[in-house]
């Protein structure tokens, strides 16, 4: 027996037969890696399980949905991108979100806010500064970002917050001191989340109705937003309440440098 001689044509056709198909998940892996597709999974929260979507640029959606199909179509509607179900969040991301929801502001969570206007992004960044368990009025955000008259637009921007809980829009309340609307399933959820953060929403609204919009200390003569962590340390015997910042100023109180209540001063409380 002799070795059959191999001509170049035979070798070339053998080589041409060595083509392969890429694994089916590869395209999605690439698209997620460049932020052109998202993965999603569920997390636990004070208001129950929530959908979370993310890609290489950050968390893109936190939301409620009837089921996976509904979430996927709402995500596509809003972002134009495909969302692919994952078993769970990447462990590091899941841990950071859980810590953030539990009140630890330190974990850095990148968010993907593509498609949001400069104004909307400024509103969301400012809302993210409000500490766990505290609230600020819409007018405070408007003033802090240098658009004091854009209170209604602030409300709209927060209503379209794509990443509630991570950007804590639930900590922004109406200027009249009522808790107000919430995009993530309605106002009851807002109250539940605030209560989970240690703030009593009923008590907060009761005080606002009684005209107690700002609080100060007789010993320091500093006036604060009522939920400011410095205001909460004031002993009851030293505490004083104000209907407006003008009233506080007339009494010789200066605004707290931490919670900066002066920012909301242009908006007068409208509770009759």
């Amino acid at each position: 027996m002799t070795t059959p001689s191999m001509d170049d044509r035979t070798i070339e056709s053998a080589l041409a037969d060595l083509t392969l198909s890429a694994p089916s998940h590869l395209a999605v892996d690439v698209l997620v890696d460049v932020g052109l597709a998202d993965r999603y999974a569920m997390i636990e929260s004070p208001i129950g399980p929530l959908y979370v979507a993310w890609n290489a640029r950050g968390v893109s959606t936190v939301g409620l949905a009837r089921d996976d199909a509904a979430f996927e179509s709402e995500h596509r509607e809003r972002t134009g991108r495909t969302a692919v179900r994952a078993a769970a969040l990447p462990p590091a991301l899941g841990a950071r979100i859980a810590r953030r929801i539990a009140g630890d502001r330190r974990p850095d969570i990148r968010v993907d806010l593509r498609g949001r206007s400069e104004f909307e992004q400024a509103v969301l960044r400012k809302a993210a500064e409000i500490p766990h368990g505290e609230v600020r009025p819409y007018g405070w955000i408007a003033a802090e970002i240098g658009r004091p008259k854009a209170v209604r637009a602030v409300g709209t921007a927060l209503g379209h917050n794509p990443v509630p809980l991570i950007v804590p829009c639930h900590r922004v309340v109406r200027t009249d001191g009522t808790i107000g609307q919430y995009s993530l399933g309605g106002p009851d959820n807002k109250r539940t989340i605030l209560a989970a953060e240690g703030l009593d929403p009923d008590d907060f609204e009761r005080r606002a109705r009684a005209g107690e919009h700002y609080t100060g200390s007789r010993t320091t003569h500093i006036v604060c937003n009522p939920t400011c962590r410095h205001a909460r340390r004031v002993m009851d015997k030293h505490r004083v309440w104000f209907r407006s910042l003008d009233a506080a100023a007339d009494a010789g109180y200066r605004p707290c440098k931490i919670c900066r209540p002066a920012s909301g001063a242009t908006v007068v409380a409208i509770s009759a």
Partner: protein
Amino acid sequence: MDTDDALALRLAHDLDGTFEALVLAHQDRLYTIAHRFLGNGHDAEEVTQDALVRAYGAIAGYDGDRIRALQLRPWLATIVLNLCRNRLARSHGAPGALSLDRESPDGATLPEPAADPATSPAAVVDRREARRRWAALVVQLPPAYRAPVVLRHVDGLSYPELAIALDRPEGTVKAQVHRGLALLRTAFEASERLEREEMTA
């Protein structure tokens, strides 16, 4: 070529809206190049993913003229080959040792399904065996010949494209391809002899 030119135009106009089309058009051939160069599906998968992500980053940094002028087939082949070579350098350049019988289940799928009634089960087995054998021979070629042979005869690049992909004159890459084929023939014949000796031993 024409479809790639159109793709480059669209990429220049709207990278984010077009990149998925690039991935779908090129992922199989890039995965094939990486798999045939590295000899295993796991590394090939990582390298292909990395190459496409880098391609996106590169295009995002290019101006419109440069994107429109891209020759996607050789350009993407260069990216994937560079990553393959880096990986080989890290693993001390011994791909042959891990090449045999390492076609991943996904990767082993034949491109044309064996639906042709004329194709007997025996023929399917023969073809799979031939692919396994030639893949093993290719991956044992020295890298300097492996890349030109894979790009020319597995991926099907033209010699002008090959010259771009490998950044060498056309004459040089032609000579490398011919030398690579000659080495393959020698290796094939040696393996045939070995098999015969084993059978008669």
